[in-house]
């Protein structure tokens, strides 16, 4: 478990460690400090609220990128009773940045596809920092179609800042493959539930982010581009990322308001990395609920509704948003 601390949560972390020290001290010496400790804990609780309840968009982006944040494979192992990873796109190679396979979720066989970041530098190098090449998206499409053949629902776990920007990725048709993947998931004749667990940037995320239900973790972000990318293109200064994060309206609450996601899943205060088990259990419950919602809908109706959902989103969602802002 990574204990990386952000600057803006340092006062809280320092206070928490002081309380722990005091408790240890009082136990060791047998001195009653409960009054002091209670006062400090009260202060810590207030500070915790202050720190995490009014996060800026940029702070949320930072939490979404926390190195200890649960990855797709973490969620899979915490949520599922059984899981077998299936590899390869059957055309070029196995992309380690996208994982997929079949498993049991609450006793029910499902196909899970997710982008996979590493938890440390070594893992990140092996996983290419969770940035897929076209073959990764081809693997995703293959597994999705396989699931549809056997009437298995598909769950996607999205945590990706964007598709890999590289020479080989372009040579092998990154853009075209993303388009095909969006099309495949749009028309897939089986239920598709997407969960944005961390970052969801650009077409690279949308390639596995189209479905019947879109869930989003509280501290996740979803936009057309990363805040740094936006700042460096628009303002020629990546250091303005915080301002860009604000302007892009990429937080879960904004995405819900814009009608882009259906449900925001609460995270443990301060982020899923502080309590992965609780985060996974929240996600599991939401997935099981969504699956049962979609049960029994004939696939033709399901696909029809999925397509209509995107039409509705674009006309209704943001208009509601604009009118609230008095446009």
């Amino acid at each position, binding site marked *: 478990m990574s204990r990386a601390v952000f600057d803006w949560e340092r006062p809280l972390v320092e206070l928490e460690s002081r309380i722990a020290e005091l408790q240890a001290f009082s136990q060791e010496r047998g001195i009653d400090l409960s009054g002091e400790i209670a006062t400090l804990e009260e202060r810590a609780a207030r500070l915790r609220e202050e720190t995490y309840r009014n996060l800026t968009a940029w702070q949320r982006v930072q939490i979404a990128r926390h190195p200890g944040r649960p990855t797709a494979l973490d969620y899979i192992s915490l949520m599922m009773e059984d899981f077998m990873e299936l590899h390869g796109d059957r055309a070029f190679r196995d992309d380690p940045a996208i994982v997929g396979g079949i498993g049991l979720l609450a006793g029910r066989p499902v196909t899970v596809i997710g982008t996979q970041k590493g938890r440390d530098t070594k893992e990140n190098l092996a996983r290419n920092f969770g940035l897929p090449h076209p073959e990764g998206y081809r693997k995703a499409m293959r597994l999705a179609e396989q699931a549809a053949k056997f009437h298995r629902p598909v769950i996607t776990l999205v945590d990706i800042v964007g598709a890999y920007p*590289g020479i080989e990725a372009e040579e092998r048709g990154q853009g075209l493959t993303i388009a095909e993947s*969006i099309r495949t998931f749009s028309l897939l004749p089986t239920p598709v539930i997407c969960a944005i667990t961390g970052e969801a940037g650009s077409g690279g995320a949308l390639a596995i982010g189209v479905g019947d239900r879109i869930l989003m973790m509280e501290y996740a972000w979803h936009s057309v581009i990363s805040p740094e990318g936006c700042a460096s293109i628009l303002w020629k200064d990546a250091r303005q990322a915080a301002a860009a994060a604000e*302007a*892009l309206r990429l937080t879960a609450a904004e995405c819900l308001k814009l009608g882009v996601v259906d449900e925001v899943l609460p995270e443990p205060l301060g982020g899923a990395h502080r309590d992965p088990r609780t985060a996974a259990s929240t996600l599991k419950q939401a997935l099981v609920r969504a699956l049962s919602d979609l049960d029994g809908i004939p696939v033709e109706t399901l696909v029809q509704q999925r397509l209509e959902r995107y039409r509705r989103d674009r006309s209704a969602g943001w208009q509601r*948003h604009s009118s609230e802002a008095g446009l």
Partner: protein
Amino acid sequence: MAGQQRPSDRGFFNNLFSRPKYVTVHPRRVNSQTPPSGAGEAEPARTQPPLPGTPTGLETSAPVRLPLTPAREVPDGLWVKCGACGQILYTKDLAKNLYVCYRCQAHLHIPARDRCQQLLDHGLEEEFAAELTGSDPLQFPGYREKLEQAQEKTGLREAALIGRGHLDGLPVALGVLDFSFMGGSMGWAVGEKISCLFDRARELRLPVILFSAGGGGARMQEGVVSLMQMATTTQAVARFSQAGLLYISVLTDPTMGGVYASFASLGDILLAEPGARIGFTGPRVIEQTIRQKLPPGFQTAEFVLKNGMIDAIVDRREMKETLARLLRFHMRPAQRGDQVVQGSV
């Protein structure tokens, strides 16, 4: 001047445009040098050395990213400067040559309305969703002003112009993205127009021809709203396709990002104009990520043709004829009318 070079020998745009004419269907050997595989991943199977003795025309190092928008030289717009070879061109002659530089053959950006005029027998006979205009769903700082400026500059309401008309006597639905409107990027309104083009064409059972140009891809200032339009446009194409209708996608300079990674890639037939920049991630971002120079000719029409991502490169001056041929290939003999060769059964 002694030793004077012809403009086409100067190496601008890596001489991609130096050849007088582009062959319509055959992949070209010239300029098809495979870039050295980078980013530490060796891919021997994919890397072929250039054929010995093949003139690559690529000796001039880094990929040149010159603007293909003709620069105005004098206020009255009588003369413009070619963005590729730098030659001063007479505006009227340039327009007559379909905005292909008559010195270096660079395919310069062409206004959407001119494109319609050039391809359709009587221009756009009906414009679809003409009233749709740009909006600012996120209240993004400075976006309103940018939109207004673009509208003023181009006389368009948004970066897409859609409608129907006749191409060589054949009814078609046509869509054109205009680079000069915020780089041809796709926000909500453009995505809505593209979807509308496919929906209307499906109702009217018309083939769709779509010229895409989107330098920035999905429009950043509309955030996740423009991202969603990648899904809705893709879905509109998919529904259209399910109706058994023909979609010819023509990639023009530049077709990048979310435009390339959605509707533009999903044609039954993918064509490109010579030298058009085509790719997903912008070259600057790739260079910064992999920390190396990109190979010459990277992300050009020639590059994606060689990599098997498009069907053919077509010179703009042969575009109408090529499209008409393709349209007729997709018609039943009775529809083709006088094109049917007697006794060809």
